[in-house]
């Protein structure tokens, strides 16, 4: 995994990415993705690559689509980087590379206006248009409908800088407020508590872009009694899910008979040093780097030594 992250955050590669340019074509993006995935000695077959690519694109589409404010796509990016830094927290060299990129992102993007962020977001959304691949974890969490379209909640906190809809204020020609009325809709919005941090370190507040598969992952729930839901979500993550299992059968085939044991060491991050070959370790590394690492934690709880 270190190989992949090192390659991803290579200075020359980053220099190239930060050059002003048009969005990559779908073909070009897929090529970059394939090359990155193969940056280590690991090799995935075509079907596996396709599956992982689909998963990645739908997850990213979800994150971009649901951003409350256009500039929240930057917070999503920071969430991605925070998670990556967590995976390599014991490799100072690579950590430095990632921090460098972080600083570069801050320098380049923190100053953009809402309009510029919205343009970036619209460009990304056009890229993802008409993609409706169903992802089992999204279906299970009810963030995606069975027709592949994402659920757009009409409740929860409004974006930072937006007011809860409902108030109409009218002013006379002197600028004095003379009338106030209200209107109601089906929406059930509340004021947000605080704004996410755009610094190198800080609470991003936004959960989009955090690890989808962490056992106690914070899921955006816009239902009342959300803390109750969070607890039940966490519990559900560990319970067997036949859909997830089916989707991940290809991973099992790759790894063959796998003896899963508890991870060694006291890291909160997920590490498997139990594979019989380097190759198998790299497969896991790739999954981990793609945010699927903790999935194995969930499977581990029920799988035991049996074949998946």
């Amino acid at each position: 995994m270190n190989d992949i992250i090192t390659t991803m955050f290579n200075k020359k590669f980053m220099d190239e990415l930060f050059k002003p340019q048009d969005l990559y074509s779908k073909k070009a993006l897929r090529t970059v993705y394939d090359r990155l995935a193969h940056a280590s000695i690991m090799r995935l077959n075509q079907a596996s690559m396709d599956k992982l690519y689909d998963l990645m694109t739908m997850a990213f589409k979800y994150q971009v689509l649901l951003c409350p404010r256009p500039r929240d796509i930057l917070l999503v990016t920071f969430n991605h980087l925070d998670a990556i830094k967590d995976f390599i927290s014991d490799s100072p060299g690579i950590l430095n590379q990632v921090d460098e990129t972080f600083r570069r992102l801050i320098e380049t993007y923190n100053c953009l206006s809402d309009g510029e962020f919205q343009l970036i977001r619209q460009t990304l959304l056009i890229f993802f248009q008409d993609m409706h691949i169903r992802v089992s974890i999204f279906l299970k969490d009810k963030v995606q409908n069975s027709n592949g379209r994402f659920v757009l909640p009409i409740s929860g906190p409004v974006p930072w800088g937006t007011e809860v809809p409902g108030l109409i204020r009218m002013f006379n020609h002197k600028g004095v407020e003379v009338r106030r009325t209200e209107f109601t809709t089906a929406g059930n919005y509340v004021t947000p508590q605080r704004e996410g941090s755009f610094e190198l370190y800080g609470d991003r507040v936004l959960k989009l872009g955090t690890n989808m598969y962490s056992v106690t992952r914070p899921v955006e729930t816009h239902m009342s009694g959300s803390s109750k839901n969070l607890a039940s979500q966490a519990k559900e993550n560990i319970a067997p899910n036949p859909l997830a299992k089916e989707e991940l059968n290809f991973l099992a085939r790759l790894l063959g008979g796998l003896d899963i044991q508890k991870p060694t060491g006291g890291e909160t991050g997920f590490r498997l040093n139990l594979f019989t070959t380097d190759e198998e370790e790299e497969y896991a590394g790739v999954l981990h780097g793609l945010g699927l690492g903790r999935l194995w934690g969930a499977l581990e709880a029920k799988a035991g030594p049996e074949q998946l």
Partner: protein
Amino acid sequence: GGIQEEICEEVLGVLQRSPLRPSQAVWCELPSRVLLVLTSQRGVQMYEADGSTMVFWHALDVPEQPAAHSVFARGIAAAGGRFICVGTSFGAVLVFDIPPKGTNVTLSEVLEQHRDPITDIAAEQGRDGAGDLVTADDSGTLCLWSSGEEFTLLGKIPGCGSSCSSVVLWNGTVAAGYGNGQIRLWEAGSGRIRAQVSAHARWIYALDLAPLTGKLLSGAEDSFVHVWKLSRNPDTDDIEIQHCHAECVTDTQVCGARFCDPAGDTFAVTGYDLSEILCYGPA
């Protein structure tokens, strides 16, 4: 003719360099003709109303090397019974003089009052001396103009931190929709704010006005479409706005909303990832 073919080939050559993705399409109604105007990253194209013939195209100055800021045309409106105004990412507003027929369209003027990319332009029939054109930009700044041989700037309303994504003009009232979900009504003559509505929970994409009744339509990323009614209090002359109706397009970020008739009894809605146009009307 030969020249047109040459132009077309040139255009196609230009377009093939990068895909032409029209960002806006507006039918511009002038007394003598209706033109279909498209904007994109390449510039502006004008077609006869049935889309059959390209009448005119204006290429934006695109730098050879991609610059950090996108170049594009955005914001289209017919003004003064004679002009078509198109905004640009530079903040400049291009004013094209349109002949009653034929292709002899000329760039009459370039209005340079905005410092941020133009988002939207709206116009209405001019009343003597009163402004008949409003231009909006990404900083939320609004400019009010009087159209003519030379356009006159009548006033400027500074932005307050949020992009003004869409704007309409009716009876001297500017209705502006913002990226933070607010709708504001401004008195065009004085530039004073007359109403502030916490209308939507997300970015407002579309505003439309039904001129016969003063109905206002707003559509936003929060999945909602609202119908409002603008009016003038006959006693106080205060501008008033009331909420009439709300529709929620489930699981859809609304990107377009337009009245289908001048009274505003019916409207059409489009959204991201939606291949259909949804039409709403009285029961």
